[in-house]
C-alpha cells in the first residue's frame, strides 16, 4: 500500500519536555530547518503526567528570558518536609540532613503538562510544525538499515482490521534525522533499543509506576510552596516507593505515589497502596474536606546511569525518558530530559552542517552537567534493593559524605518483569474498602482522566500468546495485570465457570506498566488511533 510521504530536516516523536526542547534548540541554532513534531495525544500536554518540582537549570540555558515569556512556572518552593510514616505515626526528618539532591529551595512547583503547552507555543512561534493527534506507529528504515523516519497510524480501521468509511491512511514522515522522545517505555524506542542493541553491556532498565491526584483543599490546610515527601507505610521495608505532596497555586495540591516496579508480591496493588496511603493521619488531616479533581498514572524510568542505553544510532537519536535520563534520587526528570534534547539538537545541527556523525552526541553528553548528575546519582536506586533502611543509610553515606563519588557502581540485577514471586508463596494483601471521600475505586478514577478510545478500533494492547494469561499467569501469579494496571483495563471474568481474560482497552491511560511488568512480557503496548487516551488538564 502506498502512503503519502513528507520530508523534513528533523522529525521529532513526542511533545514532552525532551522533544520540545530539541525542537526549540534546533530552531535557535538554525531558523531555516524544517522540523515536524508528532504527538499522540489530542493536544500537547494531554498525556503528560509528572509531580512536578521543577529545576530550571536546563530551561535557563534554553530560554534565558523565560520569566518574561508568561511561563506557567510561578510557585516557588518555600518549605520542605520529609516524613517517615509508620502505620499511624509519622516522624519528620530534618531537611538539613537530606542529601543536597533532595533539597528543593531553588525549584518551582509546576504542572509539567502546562509547561509543555507553553514550550509548544514557543516552538510554534519559532516555526516548528506540531501535529497533535498523530501517533507515530512504525519506524521506517533505509536499505542500509539506518532510520529514515516514521509512519503515522492509519485512522478509521475497525476491530477486525477492515477499513471503515472514514479510513485515512497513515503518512510517512521522513527526516534527515529522527528524534525519538516518546517518554518512558516508548514503543518505538523499545524497538530501536532492541534493533540497534543500544543497551548492550548495560544493566536491565528499572521502572516505577507513579500515581497523581490533584486535590483542591481547605485553605487552612494549604501552604503554597510546600513540598513534602514520605517514605515507609503503607509499603513494607522491601518495596521501593514513596509519596509526594506539592502545594501548588489556587489551593491545589499535587498528591502522588511512586512504587518501584521491581516489587515481588503479585498480590500487591500499586493503586490500592496509593489509595490507602491517603488514609494515614498525617495525610488525611491535610486533604480532609477537600475535593479530588484529577487522577492519572504513568510509568517512570528509574534505571539511571547503569541502564542508560546508547542514545545515538544511524539516522536517529533517543532522548529524555525514552532513553532514561531521569535522576532518581532527585526525583526529577524534566530538566534532564530537556538537557538531553538540547544536546541532541546541537548534535543534529553539526551533523547537518558539518556532516559529523551522530555519535558525537556521546562526547557532548559526557562533557555535560547532565552526565555528571546522572553519574553521581547512580548508586542510590540499586542500594534500595537491600531494603528501605539499608538504602537510606547507604544513600546518606553515598550522597552526603561522598557526594556520589564512591569508587564503585552498584548494579541493577533484574528486569522488573522478572521479580514477581509465585502467588502461592506470597502473602495476600487485604486492602480496605474505598470510602468515596479519601479513597476511590478505579472506575471513578479513570473517569477523571477523560480517557477514551474511539470504539470499533483494533485493541492496542496485544497479547503475544492469547492463552497465556489464563493458562499460566493466572495460576502462577494470580494474573497481576488486574492489580498493576491503574485503569482497570485487565480483568479475569468467570463465564460459566470458565475464566476469561478481558482487555478493556478503551480505559487505557497509556501508562505502559503492563508492557513493563507482565512476567512473560506477553503484553505489548502499541499506539491506538490518534487522539485516544487520557485528556489530562494540568497534570
Amino acid at each position: 500500500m502506498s502512503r503519502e510521504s513528507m520530508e523534513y530536516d528533523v522529525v521529532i516523536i513526542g511533545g514532552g519536555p525532551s522533544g520540545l526542547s530539541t525542537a526549540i534548540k534546533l530552531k535557535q541554532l538554525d531558523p531555516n530547518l524544517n522540523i515536524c513534531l508528532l504527538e499522540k495525544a489530542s493536544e500537547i500536554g494531554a498525556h503528560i503526567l509528572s509531580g512536578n518540582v521543577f529545576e530550571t537549570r536546563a530551561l535557563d540555558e534554553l530560554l534565558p528570558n523565560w520569566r518574561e515569556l508568561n511561563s506557567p512556572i510561578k510557585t516557588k518552593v518555600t518549605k520542605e518536609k520529609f516524613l517517615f510514616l509508620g502505620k499511624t505515626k509519622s516522624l519528620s526528618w530534618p531537611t538539613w540532613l537530606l542529601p543536597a539532591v533532595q533539597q528543593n529551595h531553588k525549584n518551582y512547583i509546576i504542572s509539567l503538562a502546562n509547561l509543555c503547552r507553553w514550550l509548544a507555543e514557543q516552538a510554534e512561534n519559532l516555526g516548528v510544525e506540531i501535529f497533535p493527534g498523530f501517533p507515530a506507529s512504525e519506524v521506517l528504515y533505509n536499505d542500509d538499515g539506518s532510520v529514515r523516519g516514521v509512519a503515522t497510524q492509519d485512522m478509521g480501521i475497525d476491530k477486525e482490521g477492515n477499513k471503515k468509511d472514514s479510513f485515512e491512511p497513515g503518512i510517512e514522515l521522513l527526516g534527515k534525522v529522527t528524534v525519538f522522545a516518546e517518554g518512558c517505555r516508548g514503543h518505538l524506542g523499545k524497538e530501536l533499543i532492541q534493533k540497534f542493541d543500544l543497551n548492550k553491556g548495560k544493566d536491565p532498565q528499572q521502572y516505577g509506576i507513579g500515581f497523581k491526584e490533584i486535590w483542591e483543599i481547605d485553605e487552612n490546610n494549604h501552604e503554597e510552596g510546600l513540598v513534602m515527601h514520605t517514605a515507609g507505610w503503607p509499603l513494607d521495608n522491601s518495596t521501593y516507593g514513596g509519596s509526594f505532596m506539592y502545594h501548588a497555586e489556587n489551593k491545589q495540591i499535587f498528591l502522588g505515589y511512586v512504587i518501584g516496579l521491581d516489587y515481588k508480591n503479585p498480590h500487591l496493588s500499586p493503586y490500592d497502596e496509593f489509595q490507602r496511603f491517603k488514609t494515614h493521619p498525617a495525610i488525611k488531616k491535610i486533604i480532609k474536606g477537600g475535593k479530588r479533581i484529577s487522577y492519572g498514572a504513568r510509568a517512570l524510568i528509574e534505571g539511571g546511569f547503569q541502564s542508560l542505553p546508547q542514545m545515538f544510532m544511524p539516522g536517529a537519536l533517543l532522548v529524555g525518558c525514552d532513553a532514561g535520563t531521569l535522576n532518581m534520587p532527585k526525583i526529577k526528570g524534566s530538566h534532564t530530559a530537556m538537557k538531553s534534547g538540547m544536546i541532541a539538537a546541537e548534535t543534529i545541527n553539526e551533523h547537518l552542517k558539518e556532516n559529523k556523525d551522530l555519535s558525537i552526541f556521546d562526547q557532548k553528553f559526557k562533557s555535560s552537567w547532565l552526565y555528571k548528575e546522572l553519574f553521581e546519582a547512580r548508586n542510590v536506586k540499586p542500594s534500595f534493593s537491600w531494603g528501605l533502611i539499608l538504602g537510606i543509610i547507604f544513600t546518606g553515606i553515598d550522597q552526603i559524605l561522598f557526594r556520589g563519588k564512591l569508587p564503585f557502581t552498584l548494579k541493577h540485577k533484574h528486569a522488573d518483569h522478572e521479580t514477581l514471586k509465585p502467588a502461592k508463596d506470597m502473602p495476600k494483601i487485604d486492602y480496605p474498602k474505598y470510602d468515596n471521600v479519601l479513597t476511590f475505586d478505579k472506575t471513578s478514577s479513570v473517569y477523571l482522566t477523560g480517557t477514551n478510545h474511539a470504539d470499533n478500533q483494533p485493541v492496542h494492547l496485544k497479547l503475544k500468546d492469547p492463552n497465556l494469561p489464563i493458562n499460566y499467569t493466572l495460576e502462577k501469579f494470580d494474573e497481576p495485570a488486574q492489580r498493576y494496571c491503574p485503569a482497570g483495563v485487565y480483568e479475569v471474568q468467570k463465564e460459566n465457570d470458565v475464566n476469561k481474560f478481558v482487555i478493556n482497552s478503551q480505559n487505557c491511560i497509556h501508562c505502559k506498566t503492563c508492557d513493563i511488568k507482565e512476567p512473560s512480557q506477553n503484553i505489548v503496548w502499541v499506539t491506538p488511533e490518534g487522539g485516544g487516551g487520557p485528556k489530562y488538564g494540568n497534570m
Partner: protein
Amino acid sequence: MKILVAVKRVIDYNVQIRIKEDGSGVVTDNVKMSTNPPDDNAIEEAVKIKEAGKATEIVAITVGEVKAQETVRKALAVGADKGIHVKTEGALEPLAISKIIQKIVEKEKPDLVFMGKQAIDDDCNQTGQMLSALLNWPQATFASKIEIKDTSLEVTREIDEGLETIEINTPAIVTCDLRLNEPRYASLPNIMKAKKKPIEEINVSDLGIDITPRIEQLKVEEPPKRKAGIKVANVAELVQKLKNEAKVI
C-alpha cells in the same frame, strides 16, 4: 451553491466538567477543547455535498475568542474552503450568535447554512431556529439525512416519534444530528494545507448589532448526587417502601 457552516469551540466531550468554586461558571483553564460534535457532522455533510458536485464553496464560521479559530482551522482541514472568525469576548447567547450569523449571511450570500443541532456546553438548541426567523428562511432541524434538489432540500428529521421527512425551499437553514454521517479525520497533509487557507477576522463591533445578554446567570451548580439504591427482598417490601418511605403510592 455556497454553504456556510457554523462551528463552535466547546469543552471536549470526554472531559469531566468542573464547576468554579464561586458558582460563576465552569472551569475552562487547561481543559481540552474541541469542535462541538454535531458541528463536525455539519461540516462533513457540506464537504460530502461538495464532493458530489452539488456545492462549489464551503465557508466555516465561528464566533468567539482568539482560540475559537482552532475549530475553523479544523473545518478547513477536512474540506472547508474559507474561514471566518468573528471576534468576541465573554459568553454570548443564541440570539447574539444568530444576529452575527445573519450579518455574515447578508455579506457572504450562501444558499444553505448548516450547523449542529445544539452545542454540548449550553444545550440551548436555539441558534438555528432564531437565525431562520431573522432571515425569514425555512429551517429543517435535527437532520439525519439531507437530499439536495434543484431549488429545495428533502430532509429527514430525528423527532420524538421517529423520523419525519420534509421538503423545504432553498435558501434554508439545516441543523444537523449526530446520525447524519460519520465525520472524517483530518489528515496530516490536509492540516498543513489548512494552515495556508484564509481566515477572515471580523470584530463584532464592526457588525453594528446589539449583542447585550438578555439573560442574567445567577448560579451554576452540580446536580445533586444520586443516592445509592437498595435491594428489596420481595414485592411486599417494595410496596411498603413506596408507600411509607418514598410516599409515591
